[in-house]
Structures are given as C-alpha cells and as structure tokens.
C-alpha cells in the first residue's frame, strides 16, 4: 500500500517539474538517487515530522528506537502562539526485546499513556525503519486505539528508508488527507476562509503575513501546519481557497483537496516583496471568483501599494551600506528569484544562486534576473569549490542553510541562515526588510576586519 502511495506521489500531475519530464523520467520518480558516501539531508521520517510537528496541540509519538526521536526532538524552529504540547518528544524507544517480540503492544500502551496524561485532541504516530522492518502494523494499532480510546490516532507511514525528506513531506500530506481533513465540520464557515499549505511558522513567520490577510478580511482557516490546532486542520476542507507554499512538498494534497472538496489552489510564495504582492493578488482573485465582494481586488491593490512603498522605504537606508556587495544564495527553501530581485534592488550583486528545488518557471525567472548567465545557477556547489570562492574573495557573503555555514565562516566570510533552523522570520514585506537588515548586520559587523587580518608575526 505504501508502495502504491509513493508511486502516486512520484507521478503527481499537479507538479510542474514532474509534468515537464518524459514518461520514462517520471517513472523513475522525483528526487535524486541517494548516493552512499555522498548523500546529505534527512530521511522520509524527518520530512514527515517537519511537515506535521508544527500542529501544536497534539502528541507526536515516534515508534522506533531512540535515534529517531532522541536525536532530534525539540530541535525545529516552528513557533506556537498557544499550546506547547508539540514541543515534547514522545517515543516508544524500542529496545532489543521489542524488536524480537514486536512492538505493537508497546505502541498501544504508549498511545494510551500519552492520552491519559496529556488529553490531546489527537495523537500522530510516526512509523520508522525498524518498526516497518519487523512488520509492526502501525495503521492497525492506530485504528484500534482510535476506537477504544476515543481519540483520533493518526498513522503517519513514512519510514526513513523509503526516501528523502521531500517524500516524507508528501507522505505527511497523505496522512492528513486520509485521516484528518474533513473529520470536523466547523460551525463558523466564512466566505473568505483560506488555507495555506506548506507553511511551518518558522520563527513566527505566519505573523508576518497573517495581519495583512486580516486587514483584507481574509481568515486563515488553517495553516498546514504552522501554528495549527488539530481542529482547524480537521475542518480545513471548508476553506474557499488553498495557497501552496514550498510547492513540491504539498501540491498533491492541494490537488486532492481540489478534487474532493472543490477548493481551487495556486502555488505562491511569501518570500520577496513582489512575490508577496503576487500571492495576495492571487488569493484575492480566487476568492472573488468564488463569489466574494469584488471590491476585495481594489482593497488588495491598495494594501499592496501601501505595503510595497513602506517596505522599499524601510529598505532604502540600507542601500548605501550594501551597494556592490556580492552575495551567494545557496538554498532550496526560501525561493530564489524574488529574493534575488530584492537583493538586487538594494544594490547587491548576486554572484550565484542554487536552484536545487526550484520549479522550471522559478528557474527561468531567476535566470532572467541574473542576466541569463547559466553559470550563476548551480544545482550544487561542492564544498571545496565553495570554500575557494570565499577564500579568493569572489563572494562577500553567503545566504544558505546550516549545513554549509562553516564553509563560509571558516573562510572568514559573513553568513546568514535562511533555512529552517533560522532565527529570524523572513516572510512577506516585513520579512524582506528583516532579511536586508540581517544582511547589513552581518556583512558590516566590525569583526571581519580583525578576524581576517593575519597575526602580527605572520605579516610580511
């Protein structure tokens, strides 16, 4: 069953990358083959956890040996505006005997104990490699627990070995579609309810755009899953529009929600000023199509004009400090092209950008922004090459994820984190101003002069 699901996810018709492939290519599935000894990144379980852990009021229970949860709990930067239950790590901590005798009974007891102590509205149970290998039927245990304990217990069947983090994101979407979405009928359905899929409230980014939506009278029914409550996700089938962020992760979920509940969706981004404006326009446009008062369009344009002017005005003072600085953008997450645009607007030169997870259209836009220079678009830069770039002064700073930070820092080059472990929110207009401010703080920090100078005895 899992196999069929994965095959289905791999041939997602709603995915632009996928539809651009030949039939044969498509069959091979998405995501590169993982190369032993040269692989990087998380597993499917990690991806599923990233996608679901932000649901703040439920128990997230990992059925596996200690590594899966013991080595990772409370390490993701998804914020909550209320409940904190999601920050506790729960695991069956399987030992030798569980592996010999099977872990289903232990899992059931664990679920019962978690419900008794924390009274959550739901429990999410994550399957892992070892549980899958010894044949523990997590779905059956969850079903039995739901029936006997009267609390929804949701199986998330994404053991690590089935693939990459991205596949795990998608399997998490499947779990929501099959077991959560549509299980609660809300009594407060509104004409302007929307969902945002693939938004995890990293560093509270939701609050960089939720107030904008509120000003337009648009209600966020559910963010999937940043700062979410179980009941909101369960009721999110009543929303009028779905916006998909980080498209490759949850586009299948959006498509299925469209097919089953008739909710139209679009792919957009809140990273970058013009992307944010486009996203707001698209939300308003779809809501109007679905019968909302057409003045929403004008109000949205007015808000965009106001917010863009404000953002650019706030960015203005940074221009003199950042002009001509060369930046390497190395990320899959924070979508590249509109960030490139913003950086160029402040007068920085983007000397390279990775397009690892970008869609074809995103790639084209990025390429246009970089003056058609293919060489500036990299899939992956080997660490040694990257170090050389900095050591030879070909870039003044890097924006990337934590994994490559030390390549920049050890080459005494400014670096800021724009991936999921980041410590500042960079979404929407406020977020872009925050990003520019962080770049300024980093690149113009006084340490660089001192740390780059050779020791007195090494000077000629």
């Amino acid at each position, binding site marked *: 069953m899992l196999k069929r699901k994965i095959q289905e996810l791999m041939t997602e018709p709603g995915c632009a990358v996928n539809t651009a492939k030949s039939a044969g290519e498509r069959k091979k599935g998405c995501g590169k083959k993982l190369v*032993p000894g040269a*692989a990087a990144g998380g597993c499917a379980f990690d991806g599923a956890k990233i996608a679901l852990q932000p649901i703040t009021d439920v128990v997230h229970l990992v059925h596996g040996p*200690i590594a899966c949860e*013991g080595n990772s709990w409370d390490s993701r930067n998804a914020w909550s505006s209320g409940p904190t239950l999601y920050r506790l*790590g729960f695991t069956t901590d399987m030992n*030798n005997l569980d*592996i010999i005798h099977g872990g289903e009974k232990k899992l059931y007891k664990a679920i019962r104990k978690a419900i008794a102590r924390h009274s959550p509205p739901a429990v999410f149970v994550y399957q892992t490699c070892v549980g899958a290998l010894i044949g523990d039927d997590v779905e059956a245990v969850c079903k039995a627990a739901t029936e006997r304990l009267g609390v929804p217990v949701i199986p998330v069947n994404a053991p690590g070995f089935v693939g990459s983090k991205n596949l795990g994101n998608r399997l998490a979407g499947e779990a929501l579609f099959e077991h959560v979405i549509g299980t609660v009928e809300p009594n407060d359905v509104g004409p302007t309810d929307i969902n945002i899929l693939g938004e995890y409230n990293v560093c509270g980014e939701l609050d960089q755009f939720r107030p904008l939506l509120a000003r337009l009278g648009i209600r966020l029914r559910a963010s999937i899953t940043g700062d979410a409550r179980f009941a909101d996700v369960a009721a999110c089938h009543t929303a009028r529009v779905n916006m998909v962020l980080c498209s490759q992760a949850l586009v299948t979920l959006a498509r299925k929600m469209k097919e089953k509940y008739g909710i139209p969706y679009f792919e957009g981004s809140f990273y970058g000023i013009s992307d944010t404006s486009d996203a707001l326009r698209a939300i308003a446009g779809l809501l109007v199509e679905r019968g909302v008062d057409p003045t929403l369009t004008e109000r949205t344009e007015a808000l965009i004009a106001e917010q863009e002017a404000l953002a650019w005005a706030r960015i203005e003072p940074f221009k003199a400090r950042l002009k001509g600085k060369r930046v390497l953008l190395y990320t899959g997450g924070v979508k590249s092209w509109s960030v490139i645009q913003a950086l160029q607007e402040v007068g920085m030169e983007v000397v390279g950008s990775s397009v690892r997870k970008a869609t074809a259209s995103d790639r084209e836009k990025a390429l246009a922004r970089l003056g058609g220079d293919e060489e500036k678009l990299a899939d992956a830069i080997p660490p*040694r090459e990257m170090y*050389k770039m900095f050591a030879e002064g070909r870039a003044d700073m890097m924006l990337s994820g934590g994994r490559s930070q030390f390549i920049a820092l050890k080459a005494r080059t400014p670096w800021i984190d724009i991936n999921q472990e980041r410590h500042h929110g960079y979404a929407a207009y406020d977020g872009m101003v925050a990003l520019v401010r962080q770049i300024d703080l980093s690149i113009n920090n006084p340490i660089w002069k001192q740390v780059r100078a050779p020791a007195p005895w090494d000077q000629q």
Partner: protein
Amino acid sequence: MALIVDHNKPLSTCPLKVSAPLGAALAFMGMKGCLPMFHGSQGCTAFALVMMVRHFREAIPLQTTAMNEISTILGGMDQVEEGLLNIASRAKPEIIGLISTALTETRGEDMSGELKQIRARNKELNDIAVVEVSAPDFAGSLETGWGKAVAAIIRALAVPTGGLAKLHQINLLPGCHMTPGDIEALKDIIADFGLDVVVLPDLSDSLDGHVAESYVPTTLGGTPAAKVREMGRSKLTIAIGEHMRVSARTLQEKTGVPFVLLDRVTGLEAVDRLMVSLSTVAEVPVPARQRRARSQLVDAMLDGHFYFGGRSIAIAAEPALLWSMGKLVSDMGASIAAAVTTQAVPQLSELQAERIIIGDFEDLEDQILEAGGCDLIIANSNGRQAASRLSTPLFRAGFPVFDRLGPAHEVSAGYRGTRDLITRLGNILMECPNHGPISAEHIHGHTAVAAG
C-alpha cells in the same frame, strides 16, 4: 545508597537518551583525517550530524550508506562498498569509521564478513583503516556507542610493540562526558609531569573550535592512526569513566600496558588520585603548579560550601556525568533531589540519592515535584522545558548543549576545572535564594513558549 529503578515505560517522554551510533560517531571525531559513515538510512546520519553541529558549532564530517527500501530487503553490502569507495575518492581519509544502526542490525547484516570481501576486491581502500563498530540504536546510549567505538579502534589499530623500549608516555582514554576543554586541561596536567600522552580519542585537537587554513573534508585534527599503533609503548593507560573499562582492558590485552580506571577527575579526592597515578608513573613529585592549583581548589571549597550546604540539586545525565556531578555536589554539602540517567550502572547506587531513575525528562520533572522542588537542575539543553516549567535554574552540562556558546570549552577536570565548576554552580546558587514550594498551578499554567 541509592536504589536504581527502571520503570521500563512503554512511552518515553522528552528523552534524555541519545543514540549509541551518535556516541560512536562522536568518538571518531577525535581521530585525525577521519570520516565516519553510518550504515543506515540517511536520516540516521542527518539527525546525528545536526545534533553535533548544534552542540559544537563546527562542521561535522559524517556520511551515510543511504539505505533504501530495496537494499533494506536485499542487503546493504553494495551500499557499504559504494559508500566506502565514494568516501575514499572524494575525501581521501586516513580512517573510516563504519558504524551500524538499528536498521542494519535488525536485518542482521554481517558487516565484518562482507567488509573483508570488499577490501579484498578494492585496492583503493588499502591505505585506509576501516574500523567497524556494531552499535545498534536499540541498545544503550551515547556512552555505549562511544565506548564501543574506542574499543573497536583499539582492536583494529593498536599493536603489540614487542621488544621496543617503553617511551616516557602514557595513554589517556577519556569518556564521552569529557569536553574538548577537559581533555586540553588533562593534557596540560600530564605535560606538567614531563610525560608524553596519546589521547584516544582526542576531541581537543579536532572539535575545540579553531579555524583551519584550508578546506578539510574530514576531521580537522585528532589522534592519528600511527599514534594508536604506538600506544603499546606507553607505561600506563589512564581511563576515565566506567564506560571506558572495556577499552582499557582491550588495550591491555593487546599491548600489555596496565591501566588505572579513574571513576572521575572532578573533585578534590578524585584529582588527588589522578596526581598520585601520574606522579608514580612519571617518577617525579607532583609539580608545584598542581600543588598551587590544589590549594586554590581547597580555598574555593572553603568559600563555596556556604552556598551548597542545604541546597537540593537535580541531575539528568549519562551515567559517567551523573556520577561526576552527583559526587561533586554531595562533596560540597548539597543534596541530590532527583537523579535520572540513561542506563543502569551499578556504581551509581553509591550516590547520595534516594533513587536513580533510568528514564527521561518527564521522570526528572516528576521526581523534582515529588521532592517539593529543587534549587538547581544540571542537565543538557533538552532540560530547558522542564526547568522553565519549574522556574528552576538550569546549569547546562553533557550533550547536547545547543543553546549556549562554548560547551566544548567548559572545563570541570583537574583541580582548576573543579575550582571553576564550583564557582559557576555556586554563583547560580548564590543568585537564586532557596526555592519555595512548587504549586500545581505553577506547573500546569502553560504559557506560549517559542522553540529555538
């Protein structure tokens, strides 16, 4: 006399334990030119790597055999072979640590047998030491994996040195509770006695947070394999922490070098024992610098005991760290309100606590509540939620410490390290007056707390 209790709970909540393979990888971080690889799915590596990166704020070389569904069913030896060859050609390491995980151990892979065949058919691996470690996640914890890796390195690399003359040298086998700063301090002490030392593994040379002059795809420093081969020429091995016993014994069996196992190197009496051992083997009196340091420690105990006496402290840590911290706070007159650890080590029953729970941070919180609160919690960064719910200060120690700068440079070993630890703990206790009773409302009044 403490009772060691294992609730054997079906549900672990807020685990204290981290996995054995991570401990093994950490040990390999102290080997020069090394790149360890987990034989498991790529998440096993990603989680361990991220955790070490967050703790040390350093690049961590750690690879994966990237097991997938098919190799999980058919066997992963092709993955191992491909992984070894890729690492050999890309990173050119001196040592590769090949560490099994729960996934491959559950399958029952015969890593050693197949490794022999792989080596036989791939000449490119001839100059690389491949050290295999069986450390499944489902048995033991950080200490277990660390101990197994050190023992495996000794088995693979240490050699009897036959008729070669002994050097004026000792071996040091530090436990995984020793920070790079601790190891640096011990190396200084040993140098004071005029002795050379081979430290296995030596995190103070690799993860001490320094800036290399070029890009290095392997560990930035550490013990070279050649040094391990010379361990047989040492006069004595000093192992620190009960989990290093097997390694020390293995080294003795292989090379004939006798060992002393020190249960800890924090605390006046404990460091005295270290000094006696060093003085005996070096055949010199304890150097003046150490005598002065001892005197400073005695003074710190005199000045500090006012602030420890009558106070109660809760500790959650791996056995060796719990032992070391627990003994010190008892030595200073504080009581142990709660003690939680990851596995049953008989020695722990000698701690002055009512119970030692094999458990998690939920157990710690429950124990503290049962004791009516405590003045200070000593634990790794994952104790932060419990500490904040209990409004009790948290002194971060152990692994991982990801929400403070410089855990690698924290020193508690030797007279000076003990002196400084007493100062740091004493200052917290001085700042926080005696705790009041903790009400239930206090505990359950959850406020919005952000992660990170």
